[in-house]
């Protein structure tokens, strides 16, 4: 299970889901880059052999045979990224303190407002469901006849950071028949007024590129 997008916005219950593996990355939960979490059922870890040798993953080493430490240590060869581990723990603590239900509710309010604003403009093409059901606070769209990179640049100049491109989904973009799209995604620090700022900045983009 890839929970990279979910883990900062909804509670996850690996036991109830009965999943063998679940992964997420640190930088998507306000934590450091270069670190993440892989949850695995104990019996799955027992079945697997180490993929890498190094410090801390052995039990006994002989000339012909060696034995490995118990899981998960047998998969954690070498010096761990200590600073990143501390940073990730702080990020998890921070999210727990704020509260995932509160974060989810906040994101729902932002998404509801954004969807309402999208519906006002005929020249904005929003991809995905038009309702908040089956949606999280990640909205990909295009402004008709303006290239996503140009849209992103104008938004950037209004202090709004979005991503433009194909967001690692070239196949989906081909299916949609578009070269690229703009993507806004909300964090727990975002406010409704900032969403309105996006739509004002889109007006500027219209003025610059379509006037």
């Amino acid at each position, binding site marked *: 299970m890839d929970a990279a997008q979910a883990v900062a916005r909804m509670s996850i219950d690996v036991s109830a889901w009965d999943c063998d593996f679940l992964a997420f990355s640190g930088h998507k939960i306000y934590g450091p880059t270069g670190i993440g979490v892989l949850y695995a059922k104990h019996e799955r870890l027992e079945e697997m052999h180490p993929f890498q040798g190094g410090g801390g993953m052995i039990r006994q080493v002989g000339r012909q045979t060696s034995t490995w430490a118990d899981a998960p240590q047998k998969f954690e060869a070498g010096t761990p990224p200590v600073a990143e581990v501390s940073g990730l723990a702080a990020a998890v603590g921070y999210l727990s303190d704020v509260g995932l239900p509160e974060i989810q509710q906040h994101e729902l309010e932002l998404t509801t407002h954004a969807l309402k604003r999208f519906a006002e403009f005929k020249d904005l093409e929003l991809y995905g469901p038009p309702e908040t059901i089956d949606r999280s606070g990640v909205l990909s769209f295009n402004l008709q006849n303006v*290239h*996503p*990179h*140009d849209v992103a*640049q*104008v938004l950037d100049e209004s202090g709004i950071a979005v991503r433009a*491109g*194909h967001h690692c989904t070239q196949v989906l973009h081909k299916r949609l028949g578009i*070269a690229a799209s703009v993507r806004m995604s909300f964090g727990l620090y975002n406010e409704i007024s900032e969403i309105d700022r996006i739509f004002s900045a889109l007006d500027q983009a219209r003025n610059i590129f379509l006037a």
Partner: protein
Amino acid sequence: MTTPSIYRDLLLEHARHPKNSGRLESPDLRASAFNPLCGDELELTLTVSEGTIQDCKAQVRGCSICQASASMMSELILTKTLQEAANISQVFTESLQKDTEEIAESLDSLRPLIVLKKHRSRIKCMKLAWDALEECARQNQT
């Protein structure tokens, strides 16, 4: 954009009404360039006689900067030799990498692009047409 408006207007004019846009029917040289980060595509077609670029067209699917760069490039390289065009491309690339605001006299018409070099993520957009030009020059050598 925070760029002086005279440059912005020039750039937008090229983006909206690109010069030498499309494909030549029987080109001597043809090269494509692709930006995997954003999906932009460009095809450059040239006719060349005795090493000199006679005609040039670029088919662009890209942002305003990518389109404007192709348009400005086409104006600059027409009637130049492929070697001269490749040299211009090299000086252009160097000027995008330099920290100074100084711009070589031969690149004056590209000033609206070069002033945007502080937006590092857009340099690939500016370079796409020139990548295709350099590929054409390489094909011509072999």
